[in-house]
């Protein structure tokens, strides 16, 4: 039941696109209203997508791609970019640590807890990073018993 995806959404996030951070997350949340009625679930997912989107906008050389895979009981998000890579993943996962540029920090980004927020709200979390690119995959499961059926 749980392994056939029902739908997919794809977005491209441009580098330094501070003005649009959160726009994809909002679209995803709106799209999923018909699939998952739980507002609590949509917020958790929305937060994770927002943070993944913000990371692509703030920390990549050329932006990246967001793939949202919708199953009937969960959503999987794959965020991929082509560099510059995370030099120290342990540091990156330390709350408060940020490498966000000054410009980003003046706009309210760079709190240093983006990845931590995803870890907190997602049910699975996988991060791999090389100089040639970073891939982040996470899933947010819907605990609500009223799952939709397809």
């Amino acid at each position, binding site marked *: 039941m749980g392994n056939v995806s029902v739908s997919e959404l794809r977005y491209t996030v441009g580098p330094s696109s501070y003005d649009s951070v*959160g726009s994809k*997350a909002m679209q995803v949340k709106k799209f999923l209203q018909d699939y998952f009625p739980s507002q*609590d679930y949509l*917020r*958790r997912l929305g937060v994770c997508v927002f*943070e993944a989107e913000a990371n692509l906008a703030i920390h990549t050389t050329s932006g990246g791609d967001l793939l949202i895979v919708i199953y009937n009981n969960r959503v999987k998000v794959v965020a991929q970019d082509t560099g510059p890579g995370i030099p120290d993943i342990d540091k990156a996962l330390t709350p408060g640590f940020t490498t966000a540029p000054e410009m980003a920090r003046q706009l309210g980004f760079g709190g240093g807890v*983006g990845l931590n927020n995803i870890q907190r709200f997602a049910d699975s979390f996988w991060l791999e990073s090389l100089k040639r690119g970073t891939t982040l995959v996470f899933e947010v499961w819907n605990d609500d018993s009223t799952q939709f059926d397809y």
Partner: protein
Amino acid sequence: MKINEICKIVDAEILQSKGRLNIDIHTAFAADLMSDTLFIIMREEDPLLLITGVTNLSVVRTASILDIPAVLFVRGKNVPPETIQLAEQNEILLLRSKHIMFVSCGLLYQAGIQGVSWGM
């Protein structure tokens, strides 16, 4: 506490009034950093006031993701028209006070608004 009362307490004007004008607000959260705000997930359907000094579009989007119905900008900052427009489209009320964040929080706290329980 109604929106109008909040405005009186912190000397705020309503910049964008399309939205849930009649709500009763009991809790507030203050932050300039979006990630800190995103950490707060309302457990019940309890309307929250977001207090911030950042006035860009991402603030409205953050509020939208979290279903926050009202944002109070502090420090009398200039709010770009795009921010107001996006808030209107998403029915998020925007208020602005000339007071700094510390004073705005202080006045509201004194008047009975509570903080969100935040746990890491």
